[in-house]
């Protein structure tokens, strides 16, 4: 691990990989071996208690899979996740429930994240039922979580179903459902991307306030640079299943090191219709994630690629005290 990291992070991924088998096809009978998809490839990351980290990347780069691996919603093909120093891969029964109470997820689509047949009241109490919390305390804890996300008390939601609320309200309910278990770590997977622009800031502010007042550690998964800049102190950039750059958000966005991060920042639209923009410095599309390619995953699109990039896979190496980058050229 990197020397700059704290000795005991809250959650830590070590050499985390996830392969998905490509579905069987008729051509398989001819013995054509089709390679697995490497959704996540040897990822190392660590998040300290109370820290807010962003995971930035485009669609399909493996950021959601990383989040699901950290929460043990799927099991890794290689590597492990340590939570409070203990591996989570073998957790089962009561130990798994105890982990679930401490690590929660906020969903991307609030319209799909709540059971349409559960009233709001029941949806909010459901985590407490699942984890075997004494039912006498349910109402108090639900009220507390509602207050934390700045929603009115439970009486206002009595008998209401999810389809009767707005997107912004629903996303706060989804957040409250995670908070009701009093977790120490939250993964927020594109928490506002499905919401109207007008309510995004409200939801993000609530998340930011809740996080700092409760001292929660959070991993924000997003493709949105503005969100990451607004809520994350540190940011990881992911490309094709690998972390390619890491550093304090402000520095990383101001002076990106990896050619991919630079391109990502240049691609952000500017609100001017008559703008003159230089073409993006990268070419082509995301490479195929099937098979584990030799060398750097980004080299085919990279304007700076050298012969070495095709031979040797760049490893994350420290640049200064707080930044790391996986590129031969930087």
């Amino acid at each position, binding site marked *: 691990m990197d020397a700059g990291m704290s000795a005991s992070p809250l959650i830590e991924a070590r050499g985390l990989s996830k392969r998905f088998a490509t579905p069987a096809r008729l051509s398989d009978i001819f013995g054509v071996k089709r390679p697995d998809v490497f959704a996540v490839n040897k990822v190392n990351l660590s998040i300290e208690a109370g820290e807010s980290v962003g995971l930035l990347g485009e669609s399909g780069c493996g950021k959601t899979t990383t989040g699901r691996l950290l*929460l043990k*919603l799927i099991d890794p093909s290689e590597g492990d996740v340590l939570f409070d120093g203990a591996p989570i891969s073998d957790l089962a029964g009561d130990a*798994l*429930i105890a982990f*679930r*109470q401490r690590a*929660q*997820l906020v*969903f*991307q*689509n609030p319209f*799909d*994240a*709540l*059971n*349409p*047949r559960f009233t709001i009241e029941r949806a909010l109490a*459901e*985590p407490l039922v*699942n*984890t075997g919390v004494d039912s006498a305390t349910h109402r108090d804890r639900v009220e507390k979580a509602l207050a934390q996300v700045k929603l009115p008390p439970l009486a206002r939601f*009595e*008998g*209401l*179903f999810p*389809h*009767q609320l707005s997107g912004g309200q629903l996303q706060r309910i*989804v957040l409250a*459902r*995670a908070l009701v*278990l009093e977790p120490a770590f939250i993964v927020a997977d594109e928490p506002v991307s499905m919401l109207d622009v007008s309510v995004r800031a409200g939801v993000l502010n609530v998340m930011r306030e809740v996080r700092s007042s409760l001292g929660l550690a959070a991993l924000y998964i997003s493709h949105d640079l503005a969100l990451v800049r607004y809520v994350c102190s540190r940011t990881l950039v992911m490309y094709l299943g690998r972390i390619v750059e890491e550093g304090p958000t402000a520095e990383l966005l101001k002076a990106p090191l990896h050619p991919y991060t630079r391109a990502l920042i240049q691609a952000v639209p500017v609100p001017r219709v008559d703008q003159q923009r230089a073409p993006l410095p990268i070419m082509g599309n995301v490479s195929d994630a099937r098979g584990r390619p030799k060398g750097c995953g980004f080299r085919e699109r990279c304007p700076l690629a050298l012969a070495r990039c095709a031979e040797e896979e760049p490893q994350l190496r420290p640049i200064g005290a707080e930044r790391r980058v996986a590129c031969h050229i930087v």
Partner: protein
Amino acid sequence: MANPAVLGRTAARSRSVFREGAARILRDPFSVAGLSIYLVLILIAIFADQLMTHDPTQILFRPNGRVANNQPPGGAFLLGTTNLGRDIYSQLVAGSRNALMVGLAAAISVAAIGTLIGLLSGYFGGKIDAFLMRLSDVALAIPFLPFVIVLSGFFRANTWNVVIAVALLLWPNTARVIRAQVLTVKERAYVEAARVTGASDMRILFTHVAPNILPLTFLYGSVAIGWAILTEAAVSFVGFGDPSRMSWGYMLQDAFVSQALSRGSWNWFLPPGICIILVVVAGFFLARGAEEVLFPKLRS
């Protein structure tokens, strides 16, 4: 209609979910029709002994001592008599018991077996899924009527053969549709939300997945009522029915072999036919209304 949000809020507060559901069913004319047909059928089946004017199998005589055969409707015989002098109205009333019993038993078993297998197959997937679905292929490949006839050969002619056959051969249709629905429901974010908040597989399956496929269970259960009654009628019609039990299918067969059609005795073959149609259709009507109660999002 007032503002639906306000209406929903006040209505939901003052009434329980069940009462609201019942109110919704009663507002839908199709559901009311289906419910009424079932209600009448159940009442007739319960009070059959009081409603019958004659013994349905007894050969009746006129005051002059001659057999009261082929009597037109009216008078002492509400729907007339058969060619052997039996009272058609009393046969129709007695047949309701058989229809109700066969229909309900088959519907419950098809819905229960099909739903359970569909849930397990869709949710757990893999080898469980492969095994259960191959089993359903086998059941689907067995032809229906010959199977019932073979069963009658093994267990004597018995009404329960029909129930067993419907349960054994009709569950795959239900199971496959439910499996397909489970495959989509289990990918929904709220199922993942249940998992991440500590719910066990069984809890996810029965509190998050099952209620969302329940309308299909009802629908296929009601379809099974119709199938069972139709099958029972068909089996009786081809002569493999239970001879000791009066049924609408038996009445049709009796009418057919006695050439009631060519004699134009509509009072003999029409009533059991109409009864079968009504009960089969009632199932569809009720399922239609139940859907809205079970899928809150369909409410306008």
